[in-house]
């Protein structure tokens, strides 16, 4: 794709994003309000984003080409633009997102058809359940178990926490363990409602559209054919699969950070009348930081599209953009006096929403460790150092 095409893509999603903004505060009060907005073109697009063409996904062309949203480089443009409009609406929208990327990586033909086919029938939410109450960053230590059942299928038992959209999803991926160690981890496809499955929303400080949930799994039956990647070797499905999925998606999370930072910046530009010279300088400096984070994010997306295992740039982008979103929201407040958060509900929401990025797809410390590991293992610029 050419730079010109990406500019057109950006322009198109900027237009679509304009319809999201008016619902930002409504959704913050009631995360289920998204149900009234399935007809918005941006929400409709997200409901099928990432579904490949061969499963019948036929999105409206942009500058003569359809954009399936299956590449990280496309997604970073789309996510930035929609997050700049409202990140809450973006994450509230139904669609295949994380689960869809994993399915693309490890599902067999039948599983793909099942998953993608259902995405195209009507908008439905999916979830991607990895985090456990006692295991967040340390996902490799997960304990949810998948045991063989008498009927040749499996039984899933355990608990997951903070899983986006799980309380309203119809389809999702759960990571569980069939044995010890990293090779004992497998993802399974789960349809809900299912007996033994419960998911309750957890009220959050911000980004309420994400509807993070606590899941209980009490001997939930999983047919053998719903075990993802069972046609692959164990080294290519469990840990490997979620690391690659995160690598592919992390630039998109970084892009949400860039978009949120831009929302804060644009709010200042629109509402701070007659800024002083010093204020102008500070506003411009924030703009340059946003540009820098965007450049890094786009580069990270290109890197993972070329090779899914090259995720260190994605960590750098997520580190930079995630923290920038929070800083930008706080900096924006400074232009409106100490009571900014009380007087400007959108700024207050941005401050609360931006805090979420610290946790999504790995915290600051986790990205720092990933990045340093990338450096010492020689991935960053090809010069291997002794660790």
């Amino acid at each position, binding site marked *: 794709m050419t730079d010109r095409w990406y500019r057109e893509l950006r322009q198109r999603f900027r237009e679509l994003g304009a319809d999201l903004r008016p619902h930002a505060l409504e959704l913050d009060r009631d995360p289920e309000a998204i149900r009234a907005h399935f007809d918005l073109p941006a929400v409709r697009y997200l409901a099928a984003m990432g579904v490949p063409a061969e499963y019948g996904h036929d999105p409206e062309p942009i500058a003569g080409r359809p954009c399936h949203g299956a590449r990280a480089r496309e997604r970073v443009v789309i996510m930035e633009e929609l997050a700049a409009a409202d990140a809450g609406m973006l994450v509230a929208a139904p669609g295949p997102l994380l689960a869809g990327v994993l399915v693309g990586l490890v599902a067999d033909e039948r599983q793909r058809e099942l998953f993608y086919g259902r995405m195209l029938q009507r908008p439905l939410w999916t979830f991607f359940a990895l*985090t456990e109450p006692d295991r967040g960053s340390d996902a490799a230590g997960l304990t949810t178990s998948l045991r063989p059942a008498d009927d040749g299928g499996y039984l899933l038992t355990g608990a997951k926490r903070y899983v986006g959209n799980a309380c309203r999803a119809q389809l999702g991926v759960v990571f569980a363990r069939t044995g010890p160690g990293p090779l004992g981890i497998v993802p399974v496809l789960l349809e809900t409602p299912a007996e033994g499955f419960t998911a309750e929303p957890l009220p959050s*400080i911000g980004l309420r559209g994400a509807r*993070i949930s606590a899941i209980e799994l009490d001997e939930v039956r999983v047919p053998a054919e719903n075990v993802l990647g069972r046609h692959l070797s164990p080294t290519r499905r469990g840990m490997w699969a979620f690391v690659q999925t995160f690598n592919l998606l992390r630039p998109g999370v970084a892009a949400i950070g860039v978009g949120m930072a831009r929302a804060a910046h644009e709010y200042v530009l629109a509402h701070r009348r007659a800024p002083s010279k010093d204020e102008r300088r500070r506003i411009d400096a924030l703009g340059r930081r946003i540009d820098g984070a965007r450049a890094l994010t786009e580069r990270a997306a290109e890197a993972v599209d070329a090779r899914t295992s090259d995720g260190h740039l994605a960590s750098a982008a997520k580190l930079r953009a995630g923290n920038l979103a929070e800083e930008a929201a706080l900096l924006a407040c400074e232009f409106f006096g*100490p009571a900014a*958060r*009380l007087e400007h509900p959108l700024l207050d929401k941005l401050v609360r929403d931006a805090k*979420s990025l610290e946790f999504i797809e790995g*915290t600051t*410390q986790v990205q720092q460790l990933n990045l340093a590991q990338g450096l010492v293992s020689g991935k960053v610029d090809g010069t291997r150092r002794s660790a």
Partner: protein
Amino acid sequence: MTGRIRELGPLLRGRARQEGLVPALAGLHAALSPRAPHHGPTGFAVAPAELADGGAERTERLPGGEVVVLRGEPGAEPEDWGEAVVWLRLGCSEALRETAVGHLGERVSGGSALLHRQLVRAQLADALTGQLEVRAVLDRPEPRTAADLAHAHDRLSAADRGLARLLGASGYLLGGPGHVADVSALLAAAYAHPEES
């Protein structure tokens, strides 16, 4: 420091630290604005719900009670109010630090407690430095200006953000310690003085 804040400040800090933000805020009002919520220089008040007479802009449900944000006309500042709010927030921030240390001590990752990770310790140390700085500013014998207090609020807000992060996503839930920290930041918003320009 006037005689009164010398006693009231540490009292509010202790109450915030041991009992929580809501009881400490009730104590602050009882001591300095017993009849009605005090509206700060920007016209906002943050008060325990019992003290308010309806008309809340927002309501925050915290452990130990509800806090409301009210909008009105700026009130005449009771003496010591600004400094008392900083003491109160310092206590809240210290309580958050204790919660974080407890949480990280129990949470195991890769075979050892998170509290033993150096990156975690660095973030803890950063927050602690901010709290110690605020304590040092409050203890200085000369009177504190509005700018001193605004600076102290900034340091506490930054410390709280770092500490809430250390709780992982549990620090991002309503009704939990991260929510208390967020409401503590609203106290600064209501009662810090706008910069003179």
